[in-house]
């Protein structure tokens, strides 16, 4: 109910100018309008079509939609290939995200702490961000060659330093391949996360830090009691965008090995599953559509939960 009344009252104060201050609300709406129009034109139809497809059994060169009700949804939740792909996606994303957030936070703290006076800050920031610019295809080929067996550079390095006695076939090890994918994702995105966190920290009122220092708080206490809580909105943003991006992880797992998630479907992520269903073999568009809708619902649910949890504690910080 609260939501409904809030929705009704949203325009109440639109044209009231309090004490001579001009109201720019409607300009905001005008600026957003092009996006809404483009979205409706180019993205709404495909989304609706995908949802429609998930209720049919369209595959290959067929052109007529044959509706089958909820059969696809019931089947996909029992489909071991889809479930495995879903688990793989979560596993790889978690292994990638936790270190990513941790290290980016640490770097952000060092780079924004004025007491440090780091030289060449700008260069470091550029270098951290660089991996994000490299195309996924190049990265895939690079890492595939690096970890090649039996004479790839990494193997040669490990043999030279006597870490291993015989070359290790990384791409036949499920754990190895998953860690490689997680590492590549971490390496690509920690720079971006770092820069956003830097911006977030710089947005905190410096007088808070000064006040805390005067009161004699230690660095760690300042970090945990001032920086982290006030970073909550930014962390929320990073968490949700990383989650959405992670669920859609496709380019690296697809290009790194044989396109089917070798070895033994270890790195078949949800998107690799969807792609292979739609564009190889029998080209089962209905399976891909169903899987896409399921993933959409999962992401929406989890984003909602994260948002609620973050916002509940937000009100505590304000006091």
């Amino acid at each position, binding site marked *: 109910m609260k939501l409904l009344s809030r929705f009704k009252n949203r325009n109440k104060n639109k044209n009231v100018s309090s004490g001579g201050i001009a109201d720019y609300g409607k300009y905001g709406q005008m600026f957003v309008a092009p996006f809404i129009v483009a979205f409706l034109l180019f993205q709404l139809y495909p989304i609706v079509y995908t949802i429609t497809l998930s209720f049919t059994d369209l595959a290959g060169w067929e052109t007529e939609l044959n509706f089958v009700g909820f059969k696809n949804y019931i089947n996909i939740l029992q489909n071991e290939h889809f479930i495995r792909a879903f688990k793989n996606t979560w596993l790889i994303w978690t292994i990638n995200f936790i270190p990513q957030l941790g290290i980016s936070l640490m770097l952000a703290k060092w780079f924004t702490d004025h007491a440090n006076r780091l030289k060449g800050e700008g260069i470091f920031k550029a270098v951290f961000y660089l991996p994000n610019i490299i195309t996924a295809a190049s990265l895939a080929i690079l890492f595939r060659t690096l970890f090649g067996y039996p004479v790839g550079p990494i193997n040669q390095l490990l043999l030279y330093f006597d870490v291993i006695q015989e070359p290790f076939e990384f791409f036949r090890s499920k754990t190895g391949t998953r860690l490689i994918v997680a590492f590549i994702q971490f390496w690509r995105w920690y720079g971006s996360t770092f820069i956003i966190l830097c911006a977030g920290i710089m947005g905190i009122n410096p007088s808070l830090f000064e006040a805390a220092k005067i009161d004699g708080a230690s660095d760690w206490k300042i970090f945990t009691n001032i920086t982290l809580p006030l970073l909550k909105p930014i962390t929320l943003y990073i968490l949700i965008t990383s989650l959405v991006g992670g669920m859609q992880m496709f380019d690296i797992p697809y290009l790194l090995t044989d396109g089917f998630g070798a070895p033994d479907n270890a790195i078949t992520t949800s998107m690799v599953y969807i792609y292979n269903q739609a564009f190889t073999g029998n*080209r089962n568009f209905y399976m891909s559509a169903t899987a896409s809708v399921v993933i959409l619902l999962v992401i929406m649910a989890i984003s909602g939960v994260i948002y609620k949890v973050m916002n509940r504690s937000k009100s505590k910080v304000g006091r």
Partner: protein
Amino acid sequence: MKKVLSFMLVFVLLFSVVGCSNTEPAEEQAEENASEEVTVKEASANEGDTLVVWTFTDELKGIIENYYVANNDLDYEVDVVVVPNENYQAKLDPALGSGKSAPDVFAVEAGYAKKYVDSEFTKDLTEIGINPDEIDTMEYVMEVATSPEGELKGLSWQATPGAYFYRRSLAQEYLGVSEPAEVQALISDFDKFYETGKEIKEKSNGETKIVSSLGDFTRVFLSAREDAWVEEGKFIIDPKVEELMEIGKKFNEDELTLDAQQWTETWFSGMSSDSTFGYFLPTWGLHFVLKPNSENADTGETTFGDWGMVQGPSPYFWGGTWLTVREGTEMESAAYDLIHYLTMNEEFLTQYAKDSGDLLSNTAVVNEIKDDFSEPFLDGQNHYALFAEMAKNIDASTMTGSDLDIEDLFEEQLVAYTKGEKSKEEALEDFRSNVKNSFPNLEQ
């Protein structure tokens, strides 16, 4: 008198009518005999100014640009688009389905040729002026491109039997012989091949292996199958597939291979160094794979002239390119010209065969030129005559349209089993499961 006359008229009329009906069946029969012959329509005139050709390697692009366009005066452009084989079907299928930005002529590879030949998207070649009865191409090439309704949907200029290429100097050093006939005697079946493999490994102290990757064996065993992957909607795993897995495991356990994967650095490197004794490659493998990679980029050393060719432990065929015309194309006349030139023009075929050494499927030209070949890369051996002989035994009846997709899924299980990661039952179970995932409509 009038009555007699009228009666006579009636009788005459009656007899003429009866006479006509007697001759009618004869005329109908004559027409039926005529319609059993193939009706070949003239290709309609071009309605556009560009002939769009899609292919999956740059082999065809080179041929079209260096021979077709260079030697002919065309009043239209030929635009050859190369889409890598891994993405070819994914890009082609939606284009054909919608008809938008689709090619006029497109090449199909053996691994999926049947899928397009059996579909409604390829044109019957008799509709653009090609008469199957006048074509002198090998049987199996024509059969692959013939739809179940008996329509010829595609043609090829090449036949692709497979052979085993070995290094003469390494054979002399480790086996004591180097001539093709002698080497063939040592590897004439897989048991002998295995023994020879062990001998080479021992005598060279593990420096040289008889074969670079297990992938080399795949096509050899798949060609020897009796059942296709899919027959009447049912997915079948032929016993030869299990034999392949067993042999692969045996070779891996005794370390008789370089443990490389085909088409990787390590696999190519053996062509210019002493690490590999031989490769299983077909006709196009000689000029497309072996020759270009025979020179070591770092040291400049080359293995040119040190190779020999034999049948190997088992006959097989590998790949092949067929040209098809899209149903609904506006460039029928141009399509006819291109296909006729590339597959039936004896002048071009002779020249191309001499330039590249590729085995043609046109029997007349092959018979004419096969005795004149002496390939310096193979130390003067006449590989052409040998390939021509091998081509006669090719049986392509186990080809299906989903071969490439299924074999891609099989590769992973083969590697997993031969490296000891899975048991055979598990590997076959996972293979079936992956095929079911990709092709839910196939009966297992």
